């Protein structure tokens, strides 16, 4: 794992590998120590390589706002932002996030009050049971960051990557339209 600051094997973890040691073929590992940022804070943990990012966030970091529905990429509940882009955290291993920046739903309203997108969801009945909501919120935030005035097609295309069993979607679509108007950036 030489020359790769975000990825170290647990055994090597604190010791720095001397620069330019002879190149040997990397050895596959069952666990790795990874470093990355989650909601702006640097995290360094040793994690079994088969652990998904979703499970890592929930079980190792206690960030249970990220929900797991289908666990194979269909439902969208586990969507988080990886370097600003929405991804399924159930289809990414935690070790693959080494060196990256992750944002979860917990980052939206760290203090009192709601993020404008969350407020719009509340205002426009964009949720009922709330299980799918964290994923919808993260995709909506990414969309609205990139497109302050998204087209209807962009909104539907983005929300199409998420399943909701309660709302019938109309409230969610309306919430995203409203958030585009109310989010002052």
């Amino acid at each position: 794992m030489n020359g790769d600051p975000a990825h170290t094997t647990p055994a090597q973890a604190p010791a720095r590998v001397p620069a330019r040691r002879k190149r040997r073929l990397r050895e596959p590992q069952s666990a790795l120590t990874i470093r990355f940022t989650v909601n702006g804070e640097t995290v360094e943990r040793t994690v079994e390589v088969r652990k998904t990012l979703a499970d890592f966030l929930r079980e190792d970091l206690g960030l249970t706002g990220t929900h797991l529905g289908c666990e194979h990429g269909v439902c969208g509940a586990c969507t988080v932002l990886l370097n600003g882009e929405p991804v399924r955290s159930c289809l990414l291993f935690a070790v693959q996030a080494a060196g990256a920046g992750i944002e979860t739903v917990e980052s939206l309203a760290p203090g009192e009050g709601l993020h404008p997108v969350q407020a719009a969801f509340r205002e426009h009945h964009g949720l009922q049971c709330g299980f799918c909501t964290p994923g919808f919120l993260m995709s909506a935030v990414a969309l609205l960051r990139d497109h302050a005035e998204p087209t209807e097609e962009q909104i539907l295309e983005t929300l199409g990557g998420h399943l909701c069993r309660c709302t019938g979607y109309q409230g969610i679509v309306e919430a995203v339209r409203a958030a585009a108007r109310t989010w002052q950036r």
Partner: protein
Amino acid sequence: MKPAPFRYVAPRSVDETLALLAEHGAEGKILAGGQSLVPLLNMRLARPQVIVDINGIRSLAYIRRKDDRLHMGALTRQRAVEESATVRRQVPLLWEAIRFVGHPQIRTRGTVGGSLAHADPSAELPAVVAALDAELVVRSPSGERALSPGEFFAGYLTTALEPTEVLTEIRFPVLPERTGTAFVEVARRHGDFALVGVAAVVRRRDGTIAEARLAFTGVGPGPVRVREAEGRLAGSAGTPRVFADAAREAGARLDPEGDIHATAQYRREVAAVLTRRALELAWQRSGGRTR
């Protein structure tokens, strides 16, 4: 933990990937975007011993024009293809089809090469590659070879890739003037795998079809070209009648299997309807008039 235990390694170059594959051979598996592989791992339908994660190989993600082809690194994200003005202009068939692949949240990770190497029989990109006669560049420890789609796709979820090889590049031909393309599909929901999809390419000479190609997804073990229908179109006038006849012929020639989502007969009928639509659209886009 959902996947069965495996060991993980993230090489930084194609050479290192090849060395790792040579060492771990059939028990190793390449992880690209992971949007098909990780579900298989999570459901324990696949249990590779070693995962070789190539996502750190930046040199495998690029889109660049070379002569009359657009060269695309196998690790190019589907989202990057969708956002590429170059692809939209120069390989519009790929641009049109990629928006049917999953959802934006899938395409941010999913890669072009990964979709092709996975070779799902209902995937969109294999049909695009088949319709365009794109080249698939494969590297092995002994060198590099370029395969045609017919050589590359070897059946249900199967390609000509050896366990020690890696797909590195796809070379899409930039189509000549007066050529139109279209991709249409029917799926249960937008973003699902296609029940049937068709990619059409039509080259026009005045009011005549100089050449036509049709590649289907969802109706066979891999992408399916229907050369009889293509042959019937070549040299014919670009009229609704001709397109309808070719569509009927294509529908009759296909031999899809039925499954829980759609019967074989339904797929054949949908294929015929989609063929007509795709041909008419491609013809219009080639600049041809419709009556």
